[in-house]
Structures are given as C-alpha cells and as structure tokens.
C-alpha cells in the first residue's frame, strides 16, 4: 500500500554528479601532459615516465591512506611524520644490514605503530583530548626521544630489503604495487564492510551513531591505529628506499601536513563522515604531477609549495560551493 506522499529525493545537480577523484585525476593528467608537451619532454608521457611519477607518490600515498581513516571518523593525526622517522630509524637500527633481521624489524615497527596508534586513539576517544593536541604531543614525544637517542641508533637496512624498493613486477615498481594493493584493501574495507560503514557513521554524526547503538570510541581508536600503521608502512618504505633512516626523514617530507592536504584535496571532509581513499590517491597523484611538472619547467622548489598551498585552498573552496556550506 504505497501512497506517494513525498517526492523522491531531489535530482542530483550536474556538477555534483562527477565524483571528486575523477575530477582530481583529470586535473593531474592535464597538468602533467601540458607540462611535458610545453617543455618538449614528451618522453615523460611514457611507461617509464609514468612509473617514475607513480614511484614518487608511494610514501605520501601510504601515509594518506591511514590519514584518511583518522579524518573520516572526525579526528586527525599529526604524529605521522614523527612516527615515519621513528620507524625508518628503528628498522635500519634493528637490521644492521642483516637479512635475517628483516622480518623481526618489520614486526617490531608494526608493533610500535600499533602502540602509537592505540595511544593516539585512547587519548582522543576515551580521554576526550582534542585530536590536534593529542597527536601533536605524541608526535613531539616520538621526535624528542628519537633525536635524543639517534646517536646510538646507527644502522642500515639489509641489501635484500633495500632491493625491494627498487625491484618491479612486469615493469611496475614493487612499492607502487604495494600502494595500489593497500589502497584497494582500504577502499574495500570502507565501501564493502560493516566496519567501514560504521566508521562513516561515527564520523558523520557521533551522537547519532551512539544512539544507533555503535560504540563510537572503539571506531575512533581503530581509525587511529590504522593511521599509525599507514605511517609505519611509509616509514618502512622510506628506509628501504634510502638504505637507512634519519630522525628527520618524516619532518623533512612534511608528511603530517601534506597527508592532510591530499586527503582534503581528495574530497574527504575534515569534519568527518564523507570521502574515501580513492580521493586520497587522486590527491597524491595531483601533488606528484605538480612536482614533476615543476621539475620539467625547472622551477624553484619553494615556488612549488606556493602552488600546493593554492591548490589546497582552491579544492576546499570548490567543495564548499558544491556542498552548499559544508566546508571541509
């Protein structure tokens, strides 16, 4: 007995129909191709050129995947940069060039990330500390301990481990495959599982989620653990890529702020509950193609930051218009 008392949901507006990741990836492609054509470096638009481009997205992409989870539940993680440095240093210290130590070192790093994530999540979810403050503080603590102790923490990764960062499968570098696989897993979790649906619910409306019977705190905790694990994998990758970790590797890469930037560019709302990892991957692609284009033009690296900043602002402004006031 269906009486039509209400019209169906309003028709979606044209501009809003296009998914954010598509727009961002298209933009990245346009920038990259334009730069290559203008500078006459059309050899960049080749398989080798593109894999090189993708290789440059790996570290930031891995952090960004984790950061997406934290931001989706309405939190944020500023400790990722310090954790990356810690993991990179710890991995090379534990390995000391010994291939037998590869697995234990990775396990130790993952365990550390688990702890850091649990502490971040605990502070935010159960103690109610503002996530900016909580994760900034754990980051500072990590960075401080690391800087104080690094003189004793020399070391380098095993050559076999280092090789992982340089090998490829069918011409695709292994790290790129790793990022792709993890992105796929993250997308799957968010889009296809109950856990993912609950993360969106918690981020979109914490009170509503609680009233719907969800234990909100657990999901915030889980998201922070995932954010830390993302940073951990990024740190492990950087250690392999660079042979050994330094205590400034995370800070110098500005992985904390840039990971937030690519998440936001990817259309994930800072207020939580909206977005996803495909957007984040699109965001990191945009940043990487910007970098590559600037290199092709031979522009000053500092100018690059100016444009990155402008892109973040432009993205947030565009989303604000699209969402009629729901500013990221």
């Amino acid at each position, binding site marked *: *007995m*269906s*009486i*039509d*008392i*209400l*019209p*169906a*949901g*309003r028709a*979606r507006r044209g501009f809003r129909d296009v998914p954010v990741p598509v727009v961002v990836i298209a933009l990245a492609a346009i920038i990259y191709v334009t730069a290559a054509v203008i500078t006459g470096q059309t050899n960049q638009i080749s398989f080798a050129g593109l894999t090189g481009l993708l290789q440059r997205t790996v570290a930031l992409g891995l952090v960004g995947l984790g950061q997406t989870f934290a931001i989706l539940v309405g939190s944020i993680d500023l400790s990722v940069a310090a954790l990356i440095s810690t993991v990179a240093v710890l991995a090379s210290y534990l390995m000391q060039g010994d291939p037998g130590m590869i697995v234990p070192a990775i396990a130790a790093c993952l365990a550390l990330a688990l702890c850091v994530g649990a502490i971040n999540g605990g502070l935010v979810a159960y103690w109610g500390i503002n996530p900016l403050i909580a994760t900034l503080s754990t980051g500072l603590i990590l960075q401080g301990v690391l800087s104080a102790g690094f003189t004793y923490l020399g070391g380098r990764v095993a050559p076999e481990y280092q090789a992982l960062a340089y090998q490829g499968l069918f011409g695709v570098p292994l790290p790129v495959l790793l990022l792709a696989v993890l992105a796929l897993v993250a997308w799957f979790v968010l*889009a*296809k*599982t*109950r856990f*993912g*649906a*609950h993360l*969106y*619910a918690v981020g*979109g*409306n914490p*009170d*509503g*989620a*609680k*009233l*719907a*019977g*969800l*234990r909100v705190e657990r999901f915030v905790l889980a998201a922070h653990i995932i954010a830390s694990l993302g940073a951990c994998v990024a740190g492990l990758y950087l250690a392999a890529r660079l042979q050994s970790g330094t205590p400034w590797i995370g800070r110098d890469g500005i992985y904390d702020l840039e990971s937030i930037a690519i998440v936001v560019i990817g259309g994930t*709302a800072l207020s939580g*509950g*909206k977005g996803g990892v495909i957007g984040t991957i699109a965001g990191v692609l945009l940043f990487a193609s910007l970098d590559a284009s600037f290199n092709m033009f031979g522009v000053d690296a500092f100018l690059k930051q100016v444009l990155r900043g402008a892109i973040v602002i432009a993205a947030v402004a565009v989303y604000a218009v699209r*969402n009629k006031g*729901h500013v990221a």
Partner: protein
Amino acid sequence: MTAVLEMRGIGKAFGTVKALDAVDFDCRAGEVHVICGENGAGKSTLMKVLGGSYRPDTGEVLLDGEPVRFQHPAEARAAGISIVHQELSLLPFRTVAENIFTGMEPTRWGLLDRRQMDERARSLLDRLGSSISTSALVADLSIAEQQLVEIAKAMLVNAKVLVMDEPTAALDDHDAHSLLKLVGRMKTEGVAIIYISHRMPEVMAIADRVTVLKDGRHIWTRDRRDVTINAIVTAMVGRELQDFYPARGATEPGSPVLEISGGQSRYLRDINFSARAGEIVGVAGLEDSGKGALARALFGDSPLAAGEVRISGQPVSLHSPRQAAAAGIGYLPGDRKREGIAPRQSVRDNALLTLQAMAPALSSPNGGARSRQKVDQSLRHMDVRAGDFGQEISTLSGGNQQKAIIARWLMRNPRVFVFVFVEPTRGIDVAAKAAIYQTMRALANEGRAIVMISSDLPEIVGVSDRIVVMHQGRIAGELPAGAEEGAVMQLALGVAAAATGREMAS
C-alpha cells in the same frame, strides 16, 4: 492487556536540578501512550533513561516484567526499544539505505549486503507510504523526508516499544496525517507506542492514554476518553504564581521605541511587532516557534531578509550585532556562558566589552568613558556583588553575571533604547530572579523598551506588560498583562485562535 514497559519511581538529577522526580510510567502492547509537558518538564530525559542514554539515579525499568538496566543505547536497542529522535541523527553524506541500517548493516560472507539493504529499506519506506529513493543522499532530502528516514530507521528492528519524540514537528499537515495513520497501523501490530507531542488535536486523535509531566514530576495518567484538551493544558501549566514579580509601571507606555513591520526570514513570517517606551513586552512560544529567531534578528545575528525596523521612528539596518549595538539595542543572550560572558576575563573587562568593541581602534583602552572609575561606578550601580571587580567573571553567580552584562550596556548610556533579554533567568536561583525582574522594570521605567523572550511561562505572565505569543514562525496572538498561563499555552500550541482574531498559522 499487560504492560510491556514499566518505569517505576524514576529519578534523575543533573547537579542540584531534579530533572525527574520519582516518575511512574507504563505502556502496554498495542496502545499509544502520549506524554505531554512543557519544555523542561522531563519528557526527553525520561525517554533518554528508557533509551539507555542516561542511567537513572533511582527507580527501575521493567521490560516484559523483567528489570533491565541499560548501560548504552546499543543495549536498549537490542532489547527492542526503538526511538525516533527529535534531533535528527542522520548522516547527511550517506544514502537513505545506509542511514536506515546504521549500526545494523546486514552482511553476506562478511561483506555489506547492499542489495538486501536496498530491498528492506524500500519495503520499510513503502510501508511508510514514501517513495524516497533508497540511494538518494540524505543531504538532498527535505526535512520531512529526513524525518521519515528517521522513522524507518527506528522501525528496522522489530520494536516492542517505539518512542516517537515530536515526530510531526517538522511535517506539514498532509505528511503528519500519513504518519498518524502509520502509528495506528503499528498499534494494531501490537507495538507499544510512546508518543510525545505538543500538538493537541493530534494527541486527542491518536492517544489511548495520556500522561502529563511537569517540572520532572508525574501529574496524572488518564484514559483518552476521560481527558479534554483543557484538562491537559491546565495540568501542563498549573502551578502557583509566586509573587516576586515587581509592580507594573504606573504610567501608560509612551511612544513606540522599536517597530518591526513585515519582518521575514527563513524562520520568521509576517512579523509586525512593536515595543513602546516604558514597556516590557514578553515573547512566549515553544521551542522552534521562532521566538529565538526573532531575538537573533533583533540583534542582527541572523538578520531579517525583508521588512522594516525602526528605532525611535528612525529606520535602522540590523545586519550585524555591531549595527544593532550602534542602533541602540542592548542584548542579553540566553546562553550566558557561551554568548554572554568571556568567562576567563575579569568582571571589569566583561563590563567593558561592548564599549571596547565600538571604540576607535587606536583609542586608549582605559581612557575616558572606559576608565576604571566609570566601570566600577557602573558595576556598583547594577549592584554586582564581587569581592573584586578584577576577578574572573566565571567565579560569580549567574545573577551577578547577568547584572554585569546589563552594566556593559548601561555604560553606553544614553545610547541604548531597547533591551532584548533572552531567557533572562535561566539557570538563576529564585532570589536572584526577583532582582533581575526589578532591574528590568527599572530599565523600562527610565523610558526604554524591554523585549523579554522567555520559555518560562510564569515569568512571561508575571513580568510582561503585553504578551506576544509565537507559533511556527508567526505571531500567533497578543495578550494583555496578567493573561492566564493557559491562554498563552493555547496560543503557543496553536489550539486557539488569537483573541485579536489574527490569522492563525496552520
């Protein structure tokens, strides 16, 4: 019929305020039990106890005769208690189906079963008589449609007890009518339905029993055939008038100081309003009646989109609080902690806030009218009791904070012509209330116009020289000084046409 739900002697206090005091309540299978009460009567608190959001201090809840103690809303939901919440708990950027299944998503081989979600959501919405697409984003729906999604969400679990907290508040008559038919259908399915509503005709139409709460206490529970709208309204407001209200002005009010004609905004319709010199105009109405919007419009916080405002006959533009302050309106917000005071600053700095804000940027912060002597004089004039005016204002009582905020405006004398008080005595103890009323009367007697926006009926009736009652964004009617509380309530509920024969909002 046996009671599915029994609540015995439920008590709940927040600090020293008793929100619920030994309330008994029960609901049977297949009945609609309506709870009526004013704002703050304890209806929502009682339902939050039932829903597991609050734990009661005293008393017990029995479900099917078994005592239950819910630690979390999840447990209440699992036990078969479904609540349609008054504040929407939806996720704007998720689809209708995703919203309906929040927290209870069906899975297939560990994965979300979206097909089942869509199908079951569809059949629930069909049962509600709605054709909303299950894949539409909630942000794209109208408020009424969102309300239906909220109801579908509550109906998802096979509820033994369904609580609907003012479900028709956001619906127009047609949608509300469909909803009532649905409630009737669910009743025949044997669900125990608890229904909270302010709409009297609706209450009379669907109730099997009616319970009235007031000030956290259970007044009575009666069968529908034994009650009348009047009996309900009387029980809702019935209380002794305390005689601490100051005497009304001896002289007739003067010429209009504040006039609004044809005021319109998102929340307000056809506002024609005036306040004269020496007069206290009380503005009454339920939550969301538009009285708060009127206050914010007067202070330029959410300006009128159309209409004209005059102060002392001069047209003024009120598009920001700054313009309103410059035009001579003094504003005393209802949420004192958030909007009224700067809690960590001194009493003196708080009293100076407006003067500082309006002063030229490069002027001396403590010069001339803003000197310490002038501030202290003004605070003493308002009889603000503080050990030292240099102490943080948050250490003062609510009444003294309120007086300090009045002092803030009086420091702009003689350029404040209208005072807008929002909930002037909320959170203020009885003794301090009388002092605030006397201050308001004194401000009026000095030739200013006072607009008092309040949810406290005795206050409205006791203090006002004229009562304006709002209902659904319009002025529902006007009553003279000393009107009955019941008459105000009837206008506020929209059950009586205004004495002045003003057109009623539907």
